[in-house]
């Protein structure tokens, strides 16, 4: 024992560590860097924009017992999924079944996944013939078959309509591709060449990570590294427990609704009870509606991920994200409810629409306990818009997954940011110049929506408006999965702050004079969730993303902030008067 450190600060329990804290910090950086390098390799080699622009993937490192010891943060939606998928796959297949050079693939939403487009690959790392651990990554494939192009079937009622489901199988055995399996997969996806590129990017990055892990074992020695990993998990656990201890004990609840499930037009109710007991949290989702027919159900991986996401937002975000950080958080997600969908229920929208709402619920539930750390709700929809068809220039099938940013919720100390991707992911938008180069649509407008931020002493962020026109002579098939389009379902405010503005997806057929909902124009059951609508040249689509909720009494807004809002046009003079009680001259 070179030195015994007693962790200080934040009231954490003083547990001495056998390895000095400096070395531990260095080893931790090494583990994280393995995962970051894996991710950067994927960004550079992947084919789908959802990977290489959207960064919708996660990279993780596990010890040989299935504990997560390193994680690179690319996509928060997968913070739980990546934890569970690897652990459960190892348990199901048996650790002893892995040989050097094997890669296991799976995308089963009932085995820890967040939704079916997400594919995980797992590779063992052997050092001098002995198993050290596993490297893995989870990534969103843009097209995996099913009833709707882009595999976002917003009116699916069973998993079979959502795409090809793959249980844990070895797609690579001792570094040799199982081409029989590859061919089976290729035959079931609409854009198999992209699948080939993306899965190769995922698998290739595992090899890069494996090399780096082996270098670390060479440098530090196996026993030392395992001991360091264990101490790091204890360290994260201690820090997380210290953070939770700082939250006043109590039972905190919150209820939120989604406007419909895509199959019926009835709202869905979610309920959470957050029990703070000393240095532990029990987050109980009992009271949520039974699972619904449409695909807004959350898998266990989504619900757990949203819960962790929320807790990480209200605790110190520097805590190393390994298995230890998750230990003090217990989650109860009743099977068969909308927060834990069971076979064969659909779940593709749970990851994008339900996750942010669940996370905002946990955060809002804690508002009485942590007023300085929470936020009003964000827009909370990815505004998923998927389209595809035969590209007029190449004659080949293409599919695109399009999304939008929304307003952030306001906080006690600041306004929400405008136009930011929801907190389950960290995607960038696609530049207009790239979008028009790749797809046969023309963007006519991409702008902020004034007055869409929830009013308050602190204002919610603004949503955006986009208008796209299908090029002449082109036919496309479109699918959409949005939420918050109905009045009263906007992002909630806190402490008297107002709701954020609504979302919208509408269509103006060629020759028509105004935008109408898809229900009006095409008779879809839900106005915000539908599949397989065919649009033709000259048709225009309007997508508006919701604003964020406000915080505090709008009449108490700092006049300087309001004057700036009006000058910049974020708030109209009319709204300044109506909601903020201020007559502003412009």
């Amino acid at each position, binding site marked *: 024992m070179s030195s015994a450190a007693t962790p200080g600060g934040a009231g954490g329990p003083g547990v001495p560590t056998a390895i000095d804290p400096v070395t531990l910090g260095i080893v931790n950086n090494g583990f994280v860097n393995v995962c970051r390098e894996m991710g950067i390799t994927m960004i550079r080699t992947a084919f789908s924009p959802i990977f290489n622009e959207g960064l919708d993937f996660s990279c993780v490192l596990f010890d040989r017992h299935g504990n997560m010891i390193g994680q690179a943060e690319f996509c928060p939606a997968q913070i739980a999924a990546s934890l569970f998928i690897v652990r*459960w*796959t190892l348990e199901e297949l048996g650790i002893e079944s892995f040989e050097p050079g094997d890669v296991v693939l799976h995308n089963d939403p*009932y085995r*820890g996944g967040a939704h079916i487009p997400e594919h995980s690959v797992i590779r063992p790392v052997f050092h001098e013939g002995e198993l050290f651990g596993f490297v893995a990554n989870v990534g969103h494939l843009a097209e995996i078959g099913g009833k709707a192009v882009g595999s976002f079937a917003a009116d699916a009622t069973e998993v079979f309509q959502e795409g090809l489901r793959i249980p844990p199988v070895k797609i690579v055995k001792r570094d040799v591709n199982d081409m029989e399996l590859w061919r089976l997969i290729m035959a079931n996806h609409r854009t198999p060449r992209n699948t080939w590129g993306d899965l190769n990017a995922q698998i290739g990055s595992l090899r890069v990570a494996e090399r780096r892990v082996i270098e670390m074992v060479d440098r530090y020695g196996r026993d030392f590294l395992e001991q360091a990993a264990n101490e790091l998990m204890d360290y994260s656990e201690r820090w997380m427990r210290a953070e939770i201890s700082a939250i006043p004990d109590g039972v905190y609840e919150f209820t939120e609704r989604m406007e419909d499930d895509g199959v019926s037009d009835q709202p869905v109710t979610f309920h959470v009870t957050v029990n703070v007991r000393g240095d532990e949290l029990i987050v109980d989702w009992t009271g949520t509606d039974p699972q619904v027919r449409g695909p807004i159900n959350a898998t*266990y991986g989504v619900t757990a991920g949203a819960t962790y996401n929320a807790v990480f937002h209200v605790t110190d975000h520097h805590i190393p994200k390994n298995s230890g950080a998750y230990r003090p958080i217990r989650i*109860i*997600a009743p*099977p068969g409810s909308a927060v834990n969908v069971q076979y064969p229920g659909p779940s593709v929208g749970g990851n994008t629409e339900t996750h942010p709402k669940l996370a905002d619920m946990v955060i809002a539930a804690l508002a009485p306990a942590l007023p300085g750390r929470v936020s009003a709700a964000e827009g909370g929809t990815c505004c998923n818009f998927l389209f595809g068809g035969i590209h007029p220039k190449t004659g080949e099938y293409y599919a695109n997954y399009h999304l939008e940013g929304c307003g952030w919720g306001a906080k006690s100390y600041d306004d929400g940011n405008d136009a930011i991707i929801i907190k389950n992911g960290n995607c960038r938008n696609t530049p207009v110049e790239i979008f028009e180069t790749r797809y046969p649509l023309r963007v006519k407008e991409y702008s902020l929506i004034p007055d869409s931020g929830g009013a308050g002493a602190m204002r919610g962020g603004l949503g955006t408006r986009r208008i796209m026109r299908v090029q002449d002579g082109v036919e496309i098939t479109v699918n959409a999965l949005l939420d918050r389009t109905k009045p009263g379902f906007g992002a909630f405010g806190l402490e008297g702050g107002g709701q954020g503005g609504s979302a919208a997806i509408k269509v103006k057929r060629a020759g028509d004079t105004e935008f109408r909902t898809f229900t009006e124009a095409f008779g879809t059951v839900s106005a915000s969730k539908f599949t397989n609508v065919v649009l033709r040249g000259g048709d225009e689509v309007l997508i508006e993303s919701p604003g964020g909720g406000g915080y505090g009494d709008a009449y108490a807004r700092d006049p300087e902030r309001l004057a700036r809002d009006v000058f910049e046009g974020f708030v109209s003079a009319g709204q300044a008067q109506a909601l903020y009680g201020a007559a502003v001259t412009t």
Partner: protein
Amino acid sequence: MSGAAGPDGGAGGRWVELKPAVWETVVRACDCCGQVVPKRLWVVDIAGSERRFCGTECESLYRSYVLPRLAR
């Protein structure tokens, strides 16, 4: 599903290993937390009915948190 008692069953319950047939493509969920139980179930008799958990920790959580909540 068929099952067999595991070797390290505790005093209050027993481990049951899942051996699903090839056509059984679904894994089951823990009666307490709802997590996937990929391989081994912790089976306990509580108040006359059989409960299947992902592990002993969920048995404790069930006794310390869920049962009191149900009683309310």
